[in-house]
Structure formats: structure tokens, C-alpha cells
């Protein structure tokens, strides 16, 4: 995530403001993807109006697993990103 270097202080503030909005949107997107995925994989019985016990526990395990998975992927992603930046990435001249 280099490349933000060319901005002055005011520009950095403006950018940071937008990033906070983006963070909120990202969180919401993550949340709704999570719900959609776990709903899709765990809820398949539409003969009842309320969640079955096994559907609910499947959803809970799915959420847990997805969050742990995302966290692990986040760590690896940061590592790889840092490694690329160190190697000068693909456009060393920048």
C-alpha cells in the first residue's frame, strides 16, 4: 500500500476521511457477504418459518469459521504485501 507518498497534508486528510467511509462500507459488505454465504450454505428447508436448531448452529459455525478464515487470510495478505513492497514490487522505479 505504498504510493500515497505524493500527497500533501490537506490531501492526506481528505483521503483519510474517504477511507473512513470506505472502512464502514467494507465492514458492511463483509457483514452482508457473510450473512449471504452462511444463509446459502446452511438454510435449505422452507417447510418452516423459523430457523431449525441445526440450521442455526450451522450458521453460527459458518460465521466463526468465516471470521477466522478472513483473519488468517488478512495476516497472510499483509505479509505478502510487505514482502512485495520490500522487493520493490513490480515497478521498482516508482
Amino acid at each position: 500500500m505504498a504510493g500515497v507518498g505524493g500527497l500533501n497534508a490537506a490531501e492526506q486528510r481528505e483521503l483519510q476521511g474517504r477511507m473512513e467511509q470506505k472502512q464502514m462500507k467494507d465492514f458492511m459488505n463483509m457483514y452482508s457477504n457473510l450473512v449471504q454465504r452462511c444463509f446459502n450454505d446452511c438454510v435449505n428447508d422452507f417447510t418452516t418459518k423459523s430457523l431449525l436448531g441445526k440450521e442455526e448452529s450451522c450458521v453460527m459455525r459458518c460465521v466463526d469459521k468465516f471470521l477466522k478464515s478472513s483473519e488468517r487470510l488478512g495476516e497472510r495478505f499483509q505479509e505478502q504485501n510487505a514482502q512485495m513492497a520490500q522487493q520493490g514490487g513490480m515497478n521498482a522505479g516508482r
Partner: protein
Amino acid sequence: MSFLFGGGRPQPSSAEKIAAAEAEIEMVSNMFNQLVDTCTKKCIPNQYREADLNKGESVCLDRCVAKFFEVNVKVSEKMQGEAQQRQGGAMGGGGGSMFG
């Protein structure tokens, strides 16, 4: 995923309040779009033999909505609980709260 949670910020500006309200409306709207996507896939077979919803499809859609909300409540509660555990309850505005 804790790196995605924003910190608390004091006294929101006008632009921030509008952005927060916009984000909240957008979340409800996204939720509806996902509901449409998910429930039509679950309940409407893709042969389209008839233009009308039949009884079975209609009932399936109604139950799908009910279950979709129930899942949202459960997931939201779970995540709020975890966020509070991690952050000592200092979770900011539009973060984990879906149904304001």
C-alpha cells in the same frame, strides 16, 4: 477481522452524519438486494414454465424472508457480542448494529 472495525470518533461533522445515514440506508438496501438474490435462487426454479408465482413458490418466498431476518439477527448479535468482548464495548456508530 478486527482490523476492519473503525475506532470511535467524537462529534461527527455534518458530512459525516450524512455519510453515516447514507451508509445505513445503503446497508438496508443491500440487504434487500441480497434477499432478492438469495430467496429467488432458493425458491424459484429456473425453468419459468409460468409467468405467475404459484402457491409453493409464494410460501417459500415468505418463509425465506423470515429466515433471512432471523439469520441476520443471530449473526448481528453474535458479532456485536464479539466486538464488545474485544473492545470493551466501545464499538462506534454504524458498525455492527443493523437494525437501528
